[in-house]
């Protein structure tokens, strides 16, 4: 392919611009600067296209742009040795050439910043209101399902329970086990200094049962199922499936949200319980290996000194976490607009928000339980 080139020649009062070579988009790189730096001030400009190989819209744009600028400066522009196809193409491009290409750079400065801050603040307020109304709507549908259980989509519920509960069991159990192991290991090194090794039982049981078991389970479920909820319902939103449901007289909340919320409501306490047990098992195993606390001693100590209330205090929180995770995930999914990118953004914020809310609620419960003294 011959590289395109441009040659200037002054003939009397006219400037002859000879364009040659392949003026096609792929090879314009070499002449682009030459063309755009040219600001001819001659009265007459003649484009000589005799040496031109092929021409496409890219090449035509460079020629037309130069011709346009020259005419704007008061020159007359003519073409020589131009074929019919080339002239048709030049004309088409000249007709479509845009004088001003709309700029895309966002406005900068203090006032736009202030404006965007204001927008975001109002947006955050609206989001909160919208989420609360969504929570209300979901609770209403849940209550209605309790009164009219035949409206419940059982197949969807069971499949969600399998997806969010059964399939999460291995990871939750492993996590609980490792937490127990880590607590025993860390606790042991500290407690050994006082010769109070036996208190490792209380350390493990109380921290796992009251806090860590359920809290970490909720965090795993938020990452695992919350993201899945947002992504799947969000994709349905993009494909207009939600709109289709509404036109068919199906309530998206009843069909999509209620089974998911119920599934988490049922499965999260179970998963939390499994995590608790696995944590105790891991702790007991580590205490036995590291501190020589025999399993028998561990169990006796557990029975004597750890009230069953600790387990209850932990598990009471599970349904709250479940509702928070499911409602945030489904609400975020309903906020998806238009593009698939929006699904990704909403999935991310769904997980982040759910984890944050789970931890915040856990903190509130801690304060509440310590105030009431259990």
């Amino acid at each position, binding site marked *: 392919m011959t590289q395109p080139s441009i040659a200037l020649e002054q003939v009397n009062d006219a400037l002859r611009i000879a364009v040659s070579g392949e003026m096609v988009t792929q090879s314009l790189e070499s002449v682009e600067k030459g063309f755009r730096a040219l600001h001819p001030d001659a009265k007459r400009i003649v484009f000589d296209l005799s040496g031109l190989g092929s021409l496409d819209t890219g090449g035509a*744009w460079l020629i037309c742009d130069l011709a346009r600028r020259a005419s704007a400066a008061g020159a007359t522009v003519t073409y020589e040795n131009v074929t019919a196809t080339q002239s048709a193409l030049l004309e088409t491009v000249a007709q479509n050439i845009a004088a001003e290409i*709309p700029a895309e750079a966002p406005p900068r400065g203090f006032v736009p910043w202030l404006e965007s801050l204001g927008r975001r603040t109002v947006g955050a307020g609206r989001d909160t209101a919208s989420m609360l109304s969504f929570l209300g709507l979901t609770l209403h549908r849940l209550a209605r399902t309790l009164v009219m259980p035949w409206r419940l989509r059982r197949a969807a519920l069971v499949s969600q329970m399998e997806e969010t509960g059964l399939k999460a069991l291995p990871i939750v159990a492993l996590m609980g086990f490792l937490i127990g192991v880590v607590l025993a290991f860390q606790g042991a090194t500290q407690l050994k200094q006082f010769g109070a090794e036996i208190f490792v039982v209380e350390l493990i049981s109380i921290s796992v049962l009251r806090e860590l078991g359920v809290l970490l389970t909720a965090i795993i479920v938020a990452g695992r199922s919350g993201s899945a909820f947002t992504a799947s319902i969000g994709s349905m939103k993009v494909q207009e499936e939600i709109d289709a449901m509404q036109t068919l007289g199906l309530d998206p909340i009843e069909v999509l949200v209620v089974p998911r919320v119920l599934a988490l409501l049922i499965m999260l306490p179970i998963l939390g319980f499994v995590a608790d047990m696995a944590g105790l098992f891991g702790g007991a195993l580590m205490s036995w290996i590291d501190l020589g606390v025999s399993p028998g001693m561990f169990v006796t100590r557990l029975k004597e000194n750890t009230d069953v209330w600790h387990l209850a205090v932990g598990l009471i929180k599970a349904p709250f976490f479940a509702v928070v995770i499911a409602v945030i995930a489904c609400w975020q999914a309903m906020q998806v607009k*238009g593009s698939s990118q929006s699904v990704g953004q909403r999935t991310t914020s769904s997980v982040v928000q759910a984890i944050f809310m789970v931890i915040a609620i856990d903190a509130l419960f801690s304060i509440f339980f310590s105030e009431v003294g259990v």
Partner: protein
Amino acid sequence: MDGAIQQQDTRGEAQREAVIRVRHLRNQFGPQVVHDDLNLDVWRGEVLGIVGGSGTGKSVLLRTIVGLNKPAAGSIEVLGVDVLNGPEADRRRIEKRWGVAFQDGALFSSLTVLQNVMAPLREHTGLSESLMRALGSLKISLVGLPQLSCGKFPSELSGGMRKRAALARALALDPEIVFLDEPTAGLDPIGAAAYDDLIGELQQALGLTVFMVTHDLDSLYAICDRVAVLAEKRVLVEGPIDEMTKVDHPWVQEYFTGPRARAAQQKGHDR
């Protein structure tokens, strides 16, 4: 009748250059055979319309030619390059010389219309940002979209505008061949006619070869130089549309002599 068309097709073969040459193509999904021993030539500078009933593999043929679907057997040559078994570098070069506009646009949803059109330029050329923007906006203007739509996202456009934007992106690198999958499906009659005119004009101005899968009889009569009918797993007949009515095959007869076809034919002749 069938033979007469075949004969006419081979007459001018000496002067015509086949930009796409499909030979003995076989496409199969599991036990279902879509194409069997399919042969097709597309000549430089023509607008070829591919028609056929639903499920005859029109889109599959398009996807196979552009390399999105691997056929079970056969060979495909585009611009002299074997796209199935040729070297990877040749394939890459060929991809810059064709443009594909998908049925629903398939625009990148996270980019604006202008950025969508600039994407191929950015990838395959070393032009400056401002020239790429200028060329992008030129293509957007060429397909008849207002400059205002440059900064819009695909989700903010109507279906017809998305199709135009997709065409602008397909034209970004000034390809020699443009593949269009159902370009006028879902457009209102006025919009569809305008789109037909647009393709006709661009084809004239840019010297394009257009490979068009369509169901739109109006498009066939308005802009297609030749029509290829897919049926019985192969190209049943090909030739100028006026000769299709003479083909002795029930489906072809029904398609090209039905009431809709007659109306479209009338309109095509009125133009």
